[in-house]
């Protein structure tokens, strides 16, 4: 099939783009294996404009329903795109199941994924005490000593997820001051279960079958210490999902796709990008939607221009 536009990704950016592209009557396909983006696991999103409270799952369903309302003007392929290459001034995309899709333009809305620690023990004990979703797995650590790694908003919120369950929570932070919202910081710091360990660089996750401890370095005094604990929640930021187009576009030192922030166009002709995969300064649902719409309007002029 040949499309004017293929949108890759079904988070807020991808969904926003699909709605606008359909309304412009461009021949459009959106390819995604999941809806809603990284907010999916949020228990309560309070800054999605127009809704004082919404869960990540509800938001995902709303986004999906909004895109589906525009079928068949927008076609949906519920698969991941594995490969993108240029061909005759356009692009050819290969999906998970091996489907080939051709397009005049591509909009990359693949978002980002969680950054891993990159220390010994992490791969071996992944899921065996190392957890990536506070709202999901916190109840499994009832009466256990746990660590949260990362003192930004995500880390602080994970501490609060664990608070009703864990017996003791160590919050490891690389710097000498927490980074998240002051309001959330207060909640965490005033909690008797929580001990914040500053200047802490995680060295190794210990354990045989399951996590039994964590070795870290105090970067201020240079000493290494080991704590016995049974759970490690990792919240140290994100890595952009730009791998599928890295050979085509320009990315910065963090792997983010470099775009013109007026148009969302990448440095490769025919490819646009929006949302957390780009070098946008703020990674926010509302911003991702707006940026994706900017992209579609610019793509429309390109396709019909």
């Amino acid at each position, binding site marked *: 099939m040949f499309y004017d536009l293929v949108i890759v990704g079904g988070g807020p950016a991808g969904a926003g783009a699909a709605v606008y592209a359909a309304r412009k009557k461009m021949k459009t396909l959106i390819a995604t*294996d999941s809806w809603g983006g990284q907010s*999916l*696991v949020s*228990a309560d999103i309070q800054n999605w404009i127009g809704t004082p409270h919404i*869960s*990540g*799952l509800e938001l995902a369903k709303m986004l999906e329903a909004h895109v589906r309302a525009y079928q068949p003007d927008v076609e949906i392929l519920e698969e991941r795109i594995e490969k993108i290459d240029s061909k005759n001034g356009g692009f050819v995309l290969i999906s998970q199941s091996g489907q080939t899709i051709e397009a005049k333009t591509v909009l990359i809305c693949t978002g980002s994924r969680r950054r891993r620690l990159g220390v010994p023990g992490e791969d071996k004990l992944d*899921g*065996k*005490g190392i*957890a990536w*979703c506070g*709202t*999901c*797995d*916190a*109840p*499994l650590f*009832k009466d256990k000593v746990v660590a949260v790694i990362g003192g930004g908003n995500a880390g602080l919120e994970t501490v609060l*997820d664990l608070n009703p369950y864990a017996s003791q929570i160590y919050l490891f932070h690389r710097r000498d001051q927490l980074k998240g919202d002051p309001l959330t910081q207060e909640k965490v710091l005033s909690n008797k279960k929580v001990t914040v360990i500053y200047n802490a660089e995680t060295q190794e996750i210990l354990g045989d*079958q*399951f996590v039994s401890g964590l070795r870290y370095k105090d970067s201020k005094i240079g000493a290494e210490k080991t704590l016995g604990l049974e759970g490690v929640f990792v919240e140290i930021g994100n890595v952009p999902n730009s791998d599928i187009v890295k050979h085509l576009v320009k990315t910065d030192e963090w792997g983010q796709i470099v775009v013109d922030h007026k148009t969302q166009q990448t440095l490769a002709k025919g490819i646009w990008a929006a949302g957390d995969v780009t070098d946008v300064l703020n990674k926010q649902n509302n911003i991702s939607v707006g940026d994706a719409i900017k992209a579609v309007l610019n793509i429309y002029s390109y396709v019909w221009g």
Partner: protein
Amino acid sequence: MKNIIIYTTPTCVYCKMTKEFLAKNNMPYTEHDVASDMKARQEMVDKSHQLGVPVVDIEDEIFVGFDRAGIAKALGL
């Protein structure tokens, strides 16, 4: 019809998505809340050798997380 057991916590989004997927396809399942049921939690750990939810057991075929494609295949959907 295959026997489906799912291990969940009340707060887990992927558990909800898994259950909705099964319900949509008219697949009845037995659910165990491993946040409160310690025996079920141990059963889940023994089966999956890990601690994350959801775990889906389709007649001894074990899926960790919401593995839509894997579950669909196991159920012949």
